[in-house]
C-alpha cells in the first residue's frame, strides 16, 4: 500500500490546505468583526463573559486596523491563488 501513497506530498497538501483553507475564512471573519467593532455593532459582555443584548461601544481604531490588516492578507491570498492557477 505504502508504495501507492506519496505520504510527503499528501502531508504537504493537507497541512497547507488546513492553513490556507481554514485560515482565510477565519481572517475574513476577523476582518468583518473589525468592521462591526469600528461601527459599534458588536454585542457587549457582562461580568461573566456572557453576551448581553446591549451593543458594546465602538472601538474605531482597533476595529479599522484589524479589518484593514485582515482584508489585505485575504486579498493577497486571492491574488496568490490566481497566480497559482496561471502558473500551474
Amino acid at each position, binding site marked *: 500500500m505504502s*508504495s501507492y501513497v506519496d505520504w510527503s506530498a499528501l502531508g504537504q497538501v493537507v497541512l497547507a*490546505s*488546513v492553513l*490556507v*483553507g481554514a485560515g482565510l*475564512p477565519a481572517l475574513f471573519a476577523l476582518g468583518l468583526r473589525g468592521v462591526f467593532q469600528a461601527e459599534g*455593532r458588536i454585542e457587549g459582555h457582562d461580568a461573566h463573559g456572557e*453576551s448581553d443584548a446591549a451593543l458594546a461601544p465602538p472601538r474605531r481604531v482597533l476595529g479599522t486596523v484589524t479589518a484593514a490588516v485582515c482584508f489585505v492578507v485575504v486579498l493577497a491570498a486571492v491574488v496568490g*491563488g*490566481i497566480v497559482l492557477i496561471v502558473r500551474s
Partner: protein
Amino acid sequence: MDTGLLVVVVLTALAFDFTNGFHDTGNAMATSIATGALKPRFAVALSGVLNLVGAFLSLSVAATIASGIVEQDVVTLPVVFAGLVGGIVWNLATWYLGIPSSSSHALIGGLVGSVLAAAGTSGVVWSGLASKVIVPALVAPVAAALVASLGTWLVYRITRDVPERNRTRDFRWGQIGSASLVSLAHGTNDAQKTMGIILLALIAGGAVPEGSGVPLWVVFACGLAIALGTYLGGWRVIRTLGKGLVEIQPPQGMAAETSSAAVILLSSHFGYPLSTTHVASGSILGSGLGRGDTVRWNVAGRLVSAWVITLPAAGAVGALAYVVQHALGGGLGDGVVLVALVAASAGFWWAARRKPVRHDNVNDEWDLEVPASQPVTTA
C-alpha cells in the same frame, strides 16, 4: 487514417466537456445559490464565464489525463471514442440522479474499460490507477471536510458576538469571491482534460505531429463547451449539494468554498491533483459538521456509494461500447455506438423532464418532496 472517426471523437470529447460543465456547476455555485448570495441564473452565468477564462489561463498539463494509468500505445481512436461514451453516459446517469460524482473518474473509468476490452489487463497500469486515482479519491473528501469544518468552526467562533443579521449579509461577499475562485480553477483543470483527449485523438489520427502543443481552436472549443455546460446549470446536482447534504448559511458557505479552492489549488500545485467534485462535496459536508448542524447522512451515503461505483460503471459502459464497435467493425460499429450514445442521452434528458429541477425550484425545501432520484410515475 479514418477522418470520419476522428471528427466523431473530437465532437464526442466536446460533448463530454459539456457534460463536465453542467455536472460540476454545483461544485462552485451550489452554496451561493442555496444561501441566496447570488440569484441562481446569475450564479451559473458567472461560473460559466469564469470557466471560460480559466480554460485559457494555463495549458501545461493538457496531455496527461490518462498517462501512467493506461499504456499509451494501446490508446487508439476507437478506444478513446468508447472511453468517452462511458464517461458521458455515467455523467448523465449521475446527473439524472442528482449525484455530484467526479467527471474525471467517469472519463478515466470509461477509458480503462475500453482499454481492458481492447488490450486486456496488461493495457492498464494498475499501480498508476491506484496511486493517481483511487488513493486521491479516498483522501479528497476527508481532507476537504477537515479543512472546511475547522474553518467553519473558527468563523462562527470569531463572529459569535456579531448580531446574526449583519453576519449573514456581509459574509456573502466572501462567499461569492471564494466560489468564483473555485470556478476559475475548475475551468483550468477540467477543460484541460478534454484538451488532452482531443490532442491524443489528433495525434493518434495523424492530424498533428507527435509532441505538438494544443492547437488554439481546441482551447477555444473546449473552453466554450465547458462554459456553455456550466451555464446550462446542472440544477439537479446543485440542489443536492446546496440543499441536500446540509442547510447552508453564508458564513458556512464561504468557509466551504474557501476550503474547496485551497484544497484544489494546493493539491494540483504539489502535483497531487484531487477531484473537484470530491473536494467540494467534502467541504460542504465539513462545513455542516463545523457549525454543529445536522448532516443528512443518507444523502452523503448515496454520494459515496456512487463514487465507489463510478470507475467500474463507466468502465463497463466503455468496455461494452468498445466490444460493440469491434464486433460490428469499421464505420458500422462506430455508427451504431454513436447512435446508441445519442439515444441514451436523449433518454436521460427525457426522463429528467418528467421531474424537472430548474433555477426556480432548485432551493425548495429538501424534506418536503420525493428526492429527484425517484421519479413520480403519475406526473
